[in-house]
């Protein structure tokens, strides 16, 4: 028997009811080392991040820009193993109460075994997966496994997605739909693309309960702007950069800045 772990939607609903939205923070596991990455994730939650997105370092991260690539390569070079993600989730969950989703490219899950990965994640207290390089029409095994385990499955939607595909993505996702703000990869940007607002509107029209916007969101102003129309704002590269440049102290300060006034 495993304890029931709440998915991301309860947290998002609570934030929405409070008249705001969820702040989602991304960090790769094992950067700069496993213990520090756990401390950093805890510090994010203690400084106002509502939902954690833990990146699983992978050799071929095609959706990531240079900052996240360098962080995950550092983790791999330092000996990161896939099983470390479960101890990280467990370590984080024993210290703070926030949903933890694992962002992972698909091959590491496939090689670990989709069922085994899901069971171990659930036992560790994880809420589900964000899967950037597969789409619902190529994910029958994961859909079956997440139905069995009740884990969240967050698929991505892009400005280029057709209405029919958005409808399929909304139907297949649980927790939230990850709305890719712009046609591009992870990285900081001056402005959040206007495409994000349009995409969230289309997702809502397709019946999405929760749509969180990610990619390019790097300042408190961006977060506030996005939360005007979306259920959550996902910050990745800027958080990783703060950790890389100034350690957990700098990251905590940056998270507090991002969440200032949200709660």
């Amino acid at each position, binding site marked *: 028997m495993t304890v029931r772990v709440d998915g991301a939607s309860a947290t998002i609903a609570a934030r929405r009811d409070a008249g705001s939205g969820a702040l989602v923070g991304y960090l790769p596991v094992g950067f700069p080392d496993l213990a520090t990455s756990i401390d950093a994730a805890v510090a994010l939650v203690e400084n106002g991040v509502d939902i954690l997105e833990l990146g699983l370092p992978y050799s071929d991260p095609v959706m990531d820009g240079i900052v996240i*690539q360098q962080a995950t390569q550092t983790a791999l070079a330092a000996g990161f193993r896939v099983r470390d993600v479960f101890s990280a989730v467990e370590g984080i969950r024993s210290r703070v109460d926030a949903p933890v989703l694992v962002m992972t490219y698909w091959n590491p899950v496939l090689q670990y075994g989709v069922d085994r990965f899901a069971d171990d994640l659930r036992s560790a207290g994880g809420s589900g997966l964000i899967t950037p*390089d597969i789409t619902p*029409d190529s994910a029958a095994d994961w859909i079956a496994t997440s139905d069995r385990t009740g884990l969240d499955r967050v698929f991505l939607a*892009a400005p280029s997605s057709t209405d029919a595909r958005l409808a399929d993505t909304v139907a297949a996702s649980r927790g939230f739909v990850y709305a890719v703000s712009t046609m591009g990869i992870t990285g900081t940007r001056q402005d959040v693309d206007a495409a994000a607002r349009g995409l969230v509107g289309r997702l809502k029209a397709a019946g999405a309960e929760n749509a969180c916007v990610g990619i390019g969101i790097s300042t408190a102003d961006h977060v506030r702007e996005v939360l005007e129309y979306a259920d959550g704002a996902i910050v990745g590269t800027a958080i990783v950069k703060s950790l890389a440049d100034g350690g957990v102290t700098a990251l905590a300060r940056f998270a507090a800045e991002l969440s200032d006034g949200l709660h």
Partner: protein
Amino acid sequence: MTNLRDNVGPFFGQYGGRFMPESLIAAIDELAAAYEETKTDPAFQAELAELHRSYTGRPSIITEVPRFAKHAGGARIILKREDLNHTGSHKINNVLGQALLTRKIGKTRVIAETGAGQHGVATATAAALFGMECTIFMGEVDTQRQALNVARMRLLGAEVVSVTTGSRTLKDAINEAYREWVTSVETTNYIFGTAAGPHPFPAMVRDFQKIIGEEARQQVLDLTGRLPDAVAACVGGGSNAIGIFHAFLDDPSVRLYGYEAAGDGIDTDRHAASIERGRPGILHGARSYLLQDDDGQTIESHSISAGLDYPGVGPEHAWLNDIGRATYLPATDTEAMEALRLLSRTEGIIPAIESAHALAGALKLGKELGPDSIILVNLSGRGDKDVATAGAWFDLFDEGARQE
């Protein structure tokens, strides 16, 4: 019995598929739909055929190489001369098809990955011919060992981006090309260089390359009065191999042999033999054999030949292996370089190092199949680009004159 030739994807047995970020699905679907239309579009087919004839120089000839064959147990060895194509390899066959497709879908810029630089050169060439912008992604390691091709691409007007992440070879060039494609997909088409990647690329690239085998099958019949006993090709991602195999898939008497790069040897950790030493996984959008560790992290491949230095392989080959229709064997750096020198000295033909892996395989195969056998080898490219590598390998440069 259905014909093996009829498989149009997206799956080849349990292999293939389209495992890609949502951001690229619209572009891939658009390409797949446009490609489907061209199959029955006589104007498209006629234009491609004319380019083959008056630009590439097709049909490429076959050449029997008896002096080389003396070292292969006396078997008859016949080369399919893709090295004589404009730009020096089979890669142009695929690129011209995809460049026409790019124009058809109204895009004005092309990007491509390249390992040896042959696909990059072919793409830069087509971009020049069609008046398109062109950016080529190439691993930093490869820009160094194939420096001549970097200069060729720039001469043709292409921008060459040296990729410094990961293992800095072909797989990382593909990663970087995907990243660029996501960002520029509205104006840009990705011309993929081998029969791997997400559907429709494995089937489409094969279809653009199958002309190699279709021509060669008839040419061998005309020359010898019968089909060959074996067909041999090197396998990187697998485009020249599937290109020459395809016409023979439903000829049960013809054995098909693919030679993977064994680098320092398949029992070392420096090789690129994905079928021999890998296991099924997903990389670059398709399920296939893959060099990976226990965690599913891609393992860096190693080969003296940049064009074979890839940890994956096209899904149709994975399938042909599993059903036993084709056999995949390793050829080491040393075996390939010896075969390269042997063909140069016995026949006056300097092959690409990639193609030399197939020649090394044919030398062994001839001894097995015996003196009356006929072996057709795909000479996928010429060795001009490899002279610096060969010069260093065989110590051919004069003291002080040695160049990068």
